């Protein structure tokens, strides 16, 4: 969790320094992200992130510089290998990837490979038709999928109470015949336990679960956002005391915290170095990954592109 926090801070610093053009801070959501990510069985499960999931990447042990490469504008989906890291490419369509988790879970059910899928999404995403369709499909087919909603109070400038009619994403689950629970999203242990149990139940054929992790986005929506336009300092301060790192630190000795800080600093140093030294991808790659084999017309376009480069 400390790694996620320090990395988040570093990413914001890198954005200020002009290394990252933009970044979506996860501050405040580290417990929800890291602990749920750590609950996956990386041999079998698969996670479907949004664009604000650095903590999940930390929890799953994904190559963090490769993850942040997306924010460095190097490759939209990041540079990590989604297959071996069990984390789908970053996805910026709010709601859309939740359906992929459902499809993946059906795949796992069909061939008995036994893993479970976990879909990350926000309170804002819960309004999207795709999320409803995903829960309904998961309920009808009883698929091994965990819907992990980080209810961080805000979808950019819109607060949950003007986003989620009825007030609770978890409550939606029951109407699909799906298990659900709300968990304190700032309590890492509670998140870990809830996610672990839901994944296990899913793998064992117990069907889907909706977990609504109640948390708070302590920073701006993104580095170009100005929360002062839509929420008050009091609103922010009300949650400051519930900072997941403060909660976690209370369960640790001073030495443990110091060791964790040291570890985090070392990780961040390393990630920073790799990230900064990442090369921009060669322009050829514009054309390489559109199809498994480029079409004739695409090859012609690639040739034209190359001529301009050489000219």
């Amino acid at each position, binding site marked *: 969790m400390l790694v996620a926090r320090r990395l988040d801070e570093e990413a914001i610093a890198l954005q200020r320094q002009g290394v990252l053009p933009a970044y979506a801070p996860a501050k405040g959501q580290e417990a929800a992200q890291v602990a749920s990510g750590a609950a996956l069985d990386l041999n079998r499960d*698969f996670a479907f992130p949004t664009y604000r999931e650095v903590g999940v990447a930390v929890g799953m042990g994904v190559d963090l510089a490769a993850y942040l490469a997306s924010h460095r504008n190097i*490759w*939209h*989906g990041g*540079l990590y*290998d*989604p*297959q071996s890291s069990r984390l*789908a*490419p970053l*996805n910026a*369509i709010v709601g*859309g*990837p*939740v*359906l*992929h*988790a*459902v*499809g*993946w*879970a*059906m*795949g*796992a059910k*069909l061939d008995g490979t036994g893993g479970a*899928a976990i879909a990350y999404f926000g309170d804002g995403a819960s309004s999207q*038709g*795709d999320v409803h*369709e*995903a829960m*309904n*499909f998961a309920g*009808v087919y009883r698929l091994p999928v965990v819907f992990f909603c980080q209810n961080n109070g805000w979808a950019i400038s819109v607060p949950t109470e003007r986003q989620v009619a009825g007030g609770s994403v978890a409550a939606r689950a029951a109407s699909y015949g799906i298990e659900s629970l709300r968990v304190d999203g700032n309590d890492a242990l509670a998140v870990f336990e809830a996610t672990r149990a839901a994944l296990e139940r899913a793998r064992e054929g117990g069907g889907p679960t909706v977990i609504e992790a109640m948390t708070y986005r302590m920073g701006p929506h993104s580095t170009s956002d100005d929360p002062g336009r839509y929420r008050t300092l009091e609103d922010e301060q009300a949650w400051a005391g519930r900072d997941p790192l403060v909660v976690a630190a209370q369960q640790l000795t001073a030495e443990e915290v110091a060791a964790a800080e040291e570890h985090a600093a070392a990780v961040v140093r390393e990630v920073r170095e790799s990230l900064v030294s990442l090369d921009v991808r060669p322009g050829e*790659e514009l054309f*390489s*990954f*559109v*199809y*498994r*084999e480029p*079409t*004739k*017309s*695409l090859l012609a376009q690639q040739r034209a592109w190359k001529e301009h480069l050489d000219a």
Partner: protein
Amino acid sequence: MPELSLQKALNLALQHACEDDDRVLIFGEDVGTLGGVFRVTDGLRAKFGEDRVFDTPLAESAIMGMAVGLAMHGWRPVPEIQFDGFSYPAVDQIVNQMARMHYRSRGVLNMPITLRLPSFGGIRAPEHHSESLEALFAHVPGLKVVSPSTPSEGYHLLRQAIADPDPVIFLEPKPRYWQRESFDPTEPVEVLPPGTSRVVREGKHATLIAWGAMVARCEQVAELAAEDGVELEVLDLRWLKPIDTDGLAASVAKTRRAVVIHEAPLTAGLGGEVSALITERCFGDLRAPVQRVTGYDVPVPSGELEEQYLPSVDRILTAVQTTLEYRRG
């Protein structure tokens, strides 16, 4: 040799694809128990079981989103959307997800998905059941788009689409479902790569370019024109992405005149692309601008008015006449 309808040929193609590759999955609204509203999936559930051939709830975005997830897991999904007009709710999953996942993942994740889409007009159907979406899909990087015009073409192109490692939109021309042809689907044929067209009829005075049900209409036109001594070449474009630019250029280099025909509205239809490609490649050869005969820029009307909307034999003949009589102004 058996006589097969297009509908039966497609059904066989699905059956053989399922037999050859046990990662092939067939799903959609009413494709299982019912066998599809056009019966293209008839009998497949009985043959391959509920796991391989299944009905979905009524949600097109979910059908395509699920296909993406299944492909990420290593399956080879062949979803159906019941009618052309119902693919609009799934456009986000098709464009933003299916078409880009391979790219986004830097080639790690494959999307060997074939979306079967009963398409085009000509059966006097209710609203939204007679749409032509090829221009929309052909514009999207990462998609391939194909449409057969005969039963044998249907069989082989569908096998090819399913075997293709990339997402393919397979547009089935509804009014041709019951057209019959004698051919043996088990007989091996040379598989030409995506982006190859087919000369349906040779000619030398002008080339008619079409796909789907309009190919048969162009053959009719060619018959009629032949009575007047005008020999029209008819090109079945088949692949609407990638487009067979070489095939177009070869034909037009010979005939020097071209008419492109489609059911979709004129503006920003695929006819513009075909016209531009031909002109770019054959400017010196062309004796007249490429003519377009298309649906009008109006929503597909109700059945009683549909024939007035679709490119008619008459309208195509007029365009042929225009191109033949064209004099550089």
